[in-house]
């Protein structure tokens, strides 16, 4: 069966090992998840985990939150202790960037000139932060170390981008006592991923915290600021696969188990353009920890010979100031936005429907709605708007 490990590693000893039964490209959430889930599924072949960074694999979410504000140190968000990789017989190949893949020869060649061969290739290279010349980005630990160093002497900070990373960066730098201007060229915050009610609430909240929020305007002159941070999204790192002929475009297209159109090559995480069961209209990419972890787990299970199509309910979180923001479901293509509770109270939810069906909920300090709404979205039925928006009616009571 395709995807089943078909040969054992023939070369566990001897250095440097450059052939792996499974070679995973990328040391972020998806790559780490793929490696660990392979072992959990009983895979006994050799596993190589290859990435550009020289840091031990770490989680990204704290970078724009607790690591930036200094409440967590770099040792606090390693995925796993260094010893675990040896214990699980996962070989870390760090400081390497793949520039070309040859699916026929089953090789991946790095910028350094080193070539790795593989039985199965799992591409979890993620995305590269879009950069603005002279501005800091927030994608890697090195990015945030540079940002933190710059913030030591900066007073007036410009944050470009009113998406999740920009908002978290604005909250963190404001918390550090900086004078912060947040610039978003769209007329509202989170224009691409959330509804107006949440945008309006967040504008008010950031202003209340002292951030100057500028919407729908040309970017201000960077020279007026001591430091500039750009949180303007990522470009998926799919180049070598697309060059090798993989289907895709904005990312690499995969099936429900994470297979690309190239033989023995799989992909998961930020880079994977996939048909998500919660968005029927078109393939999408999802940039979240949940997605990276769960889709990579699906790939690992398929490679280990126990395919389990990826069908997880999407979820996401953000922390800004004392706000706990949580999303469940995907609001893509919603045709209706309902507000449950009173935004002015600082505890409310925004519900998104498509043709009468609940498809996503953004929750602000409302864990209960987040938790209970999941089942309602999963069920997929039509629910009456008046009952959905009555905060006295628990969402779980609407699950039939």
């Amino acid at each position, binding site marked *: 069966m395709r995807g089943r490990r078909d040969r054992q590693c023939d070369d566990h000893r001897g250095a440097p090992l450059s052939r792996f039964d499974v070679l995973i490209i990328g040391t972020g959430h998806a790559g780490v998840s793929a490696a660990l889930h392979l072992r959990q599924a009983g895979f006994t072949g050799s596993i190589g985990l290859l990435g550009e960074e020289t840091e031990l694999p770490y989680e990204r979410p704290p970078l724009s939150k607790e690591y930036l504000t200094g409440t967590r140190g770099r040792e606090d968000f390693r995925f796993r*202790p260094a*010893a675990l990789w040896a214990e699980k017989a996962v070989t870390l190949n760090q400081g390497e960037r793949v520039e070309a893949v040859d699916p026929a020869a089953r090789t991946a060649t790095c910028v350094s000139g080193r070539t790795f061969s593989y039985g199965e290739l799992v591409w979890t290279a993620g995305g590269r932060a879009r950069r603005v010349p002279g501005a800091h980005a927030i994608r890697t630990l090195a990015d945030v170390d540079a940002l933190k160093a710059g913030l030591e002497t900066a007073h007036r900070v410009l944050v470009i981008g009113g998406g999740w990373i920009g908002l978290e960066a604005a909250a963190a730098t404001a918390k550090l006592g900086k004078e912060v201007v947040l610039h978003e060229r769209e007329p509202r915050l989170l224009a691409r991923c959330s509804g107006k009610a949440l945008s309006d609430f967040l504008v008010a909240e950031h202003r209340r915290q002292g951030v100057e929020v500028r919407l729908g305007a040309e970017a201000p002159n960077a020279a007026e600021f001591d430091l500039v941070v750009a949180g303007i999204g990522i470009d998926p790192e799919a180049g070598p696969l697309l060059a090798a002929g993989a289907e895709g475009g904005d990312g690499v297209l995969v099936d429900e188990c994470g297979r690309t159109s190239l033989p023995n090559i799989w992909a998961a995480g930020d880079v994977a353009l996939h048909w998500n069961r919660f968005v029927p209209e078109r393939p999408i990419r999802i940039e979240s920890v*949940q997605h990276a972890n769960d889709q990579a787990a699906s790939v690992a299970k398929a490679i280990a010979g126990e395919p389990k199509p990826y069908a997880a309910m999407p979820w996401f979180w953000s922390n800004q100031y004392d706000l706990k923001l949580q999303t469940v479901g995907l609001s893509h293509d919603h045709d209706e936005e309902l507000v449950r509770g009173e935004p002015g109270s600082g505890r409310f939810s925004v519900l998104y429907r498509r043709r009468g069906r609940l498809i996503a909920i953004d929750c602000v300090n409302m864990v209960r709605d987040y938790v209970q709404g999941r089942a309602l979205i999963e069920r997929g039925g039509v629910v009456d708007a008046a009952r959905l928006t009555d905060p006295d009616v628990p969402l779980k009571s609407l699950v039939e």
Partner: protein
Amino acid sequence: MTDLIINVTTRDGHARAIQGQEGRSLMETLRAGGIEEILALCGGCCSCATCHVYVDEEWASALPPLSEDEDDLLATSGAREANSRLSCQIPFGPALDGIAVTVAPED
């Protein structure tokens, strides 16, 4: 500083004693101790339930009370028991030296 110990039973029934670390959450300590089953996807901000453990009954009184958020999140788990906790919500320190926990099944 004396060694602090956490006794962990993993999903496959193996018992392990790991080094406790004061000032970190039980979740962070389990993860740093190599208990890979503790996914802790949200990093400890009480947004997922992937650090779910059962705490041995005799330690119940030593634990901080369940918050409303933790209670709500645990309610999403099909494996919830009376002694279920999210390990990210339990600060570890000398008072919990020797605590016994079992990793809950995957949901």
